[in-house]
């Protein structure tokens, strides 16, 4: 126990002896982990929005003018027989108009809709809203529906989904490059910091070797130093992300609630709750920061152990 406390104290003392280099290392690790956390949060949320878009928006089927209710019923049965459908609901022209007024006119619904009097601008816009069990079957289902003569148009979340997926890919690549670069800089800086401390403690290490200290005992304060750098580097961005994310969560919710232009996207415009994000975020940050500090210091100090 005494040895552990001694090594911890020496590790802390190393940090103090070498404040500027330690700070530079910690800041670089923090920047690296912050960027990683930021990218992680963006990716998680884009995936979340993509999923919500796929499941919430569903497939909307519009009919040809003059299609009879019988034909529409036949289509419904055919779709259900085809399988994979979780829910299929019919939306009449009147319901579509009500929904439109609610989505786009908001509080001034009655006033703005008055101009249309009894005319329903969506008279030919009755439709089926179809939700699938498995979103991956969406493309095949759309193709199947398009095969029917009475189908005029099929809308589905394809454009939103593919835009979000493209965004995700861009984020993956850009963040991957930046994070790799920052990791390399962090490794270089931690290694330099440890080398500098080892140089400052050369005299002490030589004495330790001659007294009979094991390599582990000589190495321990440096590994503690590296690990602490990693820990600081992980804690700072986590605290920062915690603050930023919670603010963002509130802002997005407020925006979605107050916006009249989002329309159907209102339902999907929400961030993944922070309580679901932080366990993975904190684990990844700690593994990255502490792991990097530990490993870099462990291997850097090896060359100083030969006395």
């Amino acid at each position, binding site marked *: 126990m005494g040895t552990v406390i001694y090594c911890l104290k020496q590790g802390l003392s190393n940090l103090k002896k070498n404040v500027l280099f330690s700070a530079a290392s910690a800041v670089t690790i923090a920047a690296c982990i912050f960027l990683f956390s930021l990218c992680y949060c963006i990716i998680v949320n884009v995936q979340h929005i993509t999923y919500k878009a796929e499941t919430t928006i569903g497939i909307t089927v519009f009919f040809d003018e003059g299609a009879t209710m019988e034909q529409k019923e036949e289509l419904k049965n055919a779709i259900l027989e085809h399988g994979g459908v979780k829910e299929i609901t019919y939306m009449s022209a009147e319901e579509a108009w009500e929904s439109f007024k609610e989505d786009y006119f908001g509080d001034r619904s009655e006033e703005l809709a008055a101009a249309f009097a009894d005319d329903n601008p969506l008279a030919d816009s009755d439709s089926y809203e179809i939700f699938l069990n498995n979103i991956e079957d969406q493309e095949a289902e759309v193709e199947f529906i398009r095969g029917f003569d009475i189908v005029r148009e099929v809308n589905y979340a394809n454009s939103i989904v593919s835009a979000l997926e493209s965004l995700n890919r861009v984020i993956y690549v850009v963040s991957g490059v930046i994070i790799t670069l920052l990791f390399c800089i962090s490794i270089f800086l931690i290694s330099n910091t440890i080398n500098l401390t080892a140089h400052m403690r050369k005299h002490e290490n030589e004495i*330790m*070797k001659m007294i009979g200290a094991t390599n582990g005992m000589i190495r321990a304060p440096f590994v503690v130093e590296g690990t602490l750098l990693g820990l600081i580097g992980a804690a700072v961005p986590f605290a920062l992300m915690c603050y930023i994310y919670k603010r963002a969560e509130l802002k997005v919710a407020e925006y979605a609630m107050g916006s009249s232009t989002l329309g159907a996207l209102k339902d999907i415009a929400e961030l993944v709750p922070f309580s679901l994000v932080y366990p993975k975020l904190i684990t990844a940050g700690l593994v990255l920061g502490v792991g990097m500090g530990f490993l870099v210091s462990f291997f850097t100090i090896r060359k100083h152990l030969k006395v």
Partner: protein
Amino acid sequence: MIEFKNVSKLYRKGVRAVRNINLKVDDGEFVFLTGKSGAGKSTLLKLITRELTASDGEVIVNGRDLKRLKDREIPKYRRELGIVFQDFRLLNDRNVYENIAFAQRVIGAPLSEIRKNVPMMMQLTGISSKYKSMPDQLSGGEQQRVAIARALINRPSVILADEPTGNLDEKNSEEIMRLLTEINNMGTTVLIITHSRQLVESMKKRVIVMDKGTIVDDYIDPSANKPVSAFFESETKKRGRSRKNPEFNGAGLKIVTDEDEW
């Protein structure tokens, strides 16, 4: 016991630092190792501390063949040695107590043992009153006492001192030698490397003289009570304390005792 059997050390650049050394230092002996710069004294010391390994021959310390010592066994072996340096090598950011305790901390000794042993060593070396002082507040003699206390605290069987009085004035040198003699009287083997002929002459102990990597003389002052391991021709003959050994070829050792004629 320290024993060298036909030991040679060849450095990478082809320099032969020591050649064909045969030497035996018994437990409890007090020995001076002396010679000019470049004679091979430090190499001999490094062979004992296992900083270097012999190119040829065997170095045996306390029954261990150092060449066969595995890297992970070296720390444990070094705990049997106490090393004292000319420049003291104290940690300037720690006080006397912490400098001595350091030797126990780094080998993972329990705190209770450290608390018991440090005051004991400070008392033995006469620096108890300075326990809070930092190294730069101490005289050279006091710093060397701290270094000796640090070397002794792990209860080594051998003390290796490399020019322990090199940075000290005459008075402090005498005190340090008196302290090392006391330690030797308690049963610890003491091997001192020194350039100082005056010091060697005043102590009347066994003296090993090296030159160009070989032992050229190994004698003892007749007034000392320790057995002599070897006895060779040397320039000390001029001082009338050594006798010529016609059989000496740089490798063989002739064991004689102090009953022999001087």
